[in-house]
C-alpha cells in the first residue's frame, strides 16, 4: 500500500524522466561516435553500420543486439514522454490564472524550453527515422542501400542540413538543462559545489553532442566529405 504511494508521486515521475534521459544520453554519444566515422571515409562508415547489425553474433541472431538496443530505447521513449506529459499537465493545472507581469529572474532560457524543445526533438526523431532508418528516403533520388551515400546525398541538400542543425540546437539546449536536472532529480547535487559541477558537466556534454553531430552535415555541405 505504502509502496505504491511513493511510486505515485511527482518525484517518481521525475526519476523516470531522469533515468530514461540518461539512457538517451548514452545512445546519442554512441550515435555521434558512429557519425564521426564519416570523416574516415565511405568504407569505414559503412563497415561500422554493418558491424552494428552483426554485434553479438554468433551468440545473438543477426541484428539481435541492435534490436535489444532499439527496444530499450523505445521503452525509454515511452517512459520519458509519458512522464513528461503527466508533469506538463500537472503544471498547467497548478496555475490556471496567469500573471499579468511575470519575470524569470535567475533562470536559464534552456530550462524554460524543455517541453517545447522536447516536442521539437520528437518531431525531428520521426523525420530522421523516415529519412535514414524506416523509410530510407534519398532526397536526390540516389542510392538508399549504402548508408554513406544516403548520408552524403541528404546533406548536400542545404535545407536538409538546416533541419538537422536546428534539431541539434534543440538537442543541445535540452541536454544543457536536462543533464544537470537529471543529476539533481537523482539526488546527486546535495551541495553548491556539486550543483555547479553538474551544471558545467551538462553544458560541456551538450556542446560536445550538438557540435559533434553538426560537424558531419556541415562537412558535407562544405565539400570536405564527398562521394
Amino acid at each position: 500500500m505504502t509502496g505504491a504511494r511513493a511510486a505515485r508521486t511527482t518525484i517518481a515521475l521525475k526519476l523516470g524522466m531522469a533515468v530514461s534521459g540518461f539512457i538517451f544520453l548514452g545512445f546519442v554519444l554512441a550515435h555521434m561516435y558512429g557519425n564521426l566515422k564519416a570523416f574516415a571515409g565511405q568504407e569505414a562508415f559503412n563497415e561500422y553500420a554493418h558491424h552494428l547489425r552483426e554485434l553479438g553474433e554468433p551468440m545473438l541472431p543477426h541484428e539481435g543486439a541492435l534490436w535489444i538496443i532499439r527496444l530499450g530505447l523505445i521503452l525509454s521513449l515511452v517512459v520519458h514522454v509519458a512522464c513528461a506529459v503527466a508533469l506538463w499537465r500537472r503544471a498547467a493545472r497548478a496555475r490556471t490564472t496567469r500573471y499579468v507581469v511575470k519575470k524569470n529572474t535567475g533562470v536559464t532560457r534552456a530550462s524554460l524550453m524543455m517541453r517545447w524543445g522536447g516536442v521539437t526533438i520528437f518531431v525531428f526523431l520521426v523525420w530522421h527515422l523516415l529519412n535514414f532508418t524506416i523509410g530510407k528516403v534519398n532526397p536526390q533520388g540516389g542510392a538508399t542501400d549504402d548508408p554513406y551515400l544516403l548520408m552524403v546525398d541528404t546533406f548536400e541538400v542545404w535545407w536538409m542540413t538546416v533541419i538537422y542543425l536546428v534539431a541539434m540546437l534543440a538537442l543541445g539546449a535540452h541536454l544543457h538543462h536536462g543533464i544537470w536536472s537529471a543529476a539533481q532529480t537523482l539526488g546527486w547535487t546535495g551541495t553548491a559545489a556539486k550543483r555547479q559541477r553538474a551544471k558545467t558537466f551538462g553544458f560541456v556534454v551538450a556542446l560536445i553532442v550538438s557540435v559533434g553531430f553538426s560537424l558531419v552535415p556541415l562537412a558535407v555541405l562544405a565539400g570536405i566529405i564527398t562521394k
Partner: protein
Amino acid sequence: MNLTLKIWRQPDASSAGAMHTYELSDVSPDMSFLEMLDVLNEQLNEKGEEPIAFDSDCREGICGTCGLMINGDAHGPEVTTTCQLHMRSFKDGETITIEPWRSDAFPVVKDLIVDRSAFDRIIQQGGYISVNTGSAPEAHSVPVPRDDALRAFNVATCIGCGACVAACPNGSASLFMGAKITHLGELPQGQPERDTRVVNMVAQHDHEGFGGCTNIGACTAACPKEIPLDVISQLNKDLRTAIKHGH
C-alpha cells in the same frame, strides 16, 4: 516619488477579479512597500472606496505572511520579503504591477490575499518530530556534527511565505518541502520519521495540486531567505531512499 500602481482587485474567492490602476503621489523613498500600500489605503478610505486587502504581520521579514508579486518578481526586485522592500528600489514615475501569488493550491481570498493553508497541511504530514515532552534533555546527550547543524539551521530559516511556489513556472512547492525535509533530516531527532516524512509530505503536495519540479531554479532566486537549490536534491534523494526501503 509619483507612482502608477496596477493592482489586482477581487471582492472574494468566488468573484472574478481585474487589474485596477491607481495614481499615488509624494511617496517617500524611505517607505517600505507595505507602508506605501497603507498610504494608498488611507486615501481610498477617505474617498469612501474599499481599501486594498493584503496580508502582513510582523513587518520585520521573519513571519512570511506578506507576499506580493511585484512587477513579475515574488517579493519584488530585492532578495527580501515585501515588508522589507523599500520604495528606493523603484524609480520616480514608475508603473508597478502588484498581483497575488498565482497558484491553484493558493486560492485568492480577496484582492492580494491568498489562502496558504495547503502549506499547513503539508507540514501536518511530516514537518515535525515525535519526542517525549517533559524536562529539557541534556544538551550533550545527542551530539550533532557542526556542518549538519549549520545546514539544518540555514534551511530552517524558511518562513513558508510561498514565494517559491509563486515564482515557479510549474507552480511547484519543492523548495519549501526540500527546506523542511533537509532541516529535520540533517538532525538525529529527525531520523525515525525520515522515510514516512518525505513520502507523506510529497503525497500531500501532489494532492494539493502543486506542480512537479523541473529544476528551473526560479524558486531559489525568489526566496527571501535564500534557501539553496540543493534542498530539492535532498528531497529527491530522500524520496528515492524511501522507495528503496519499501515505502
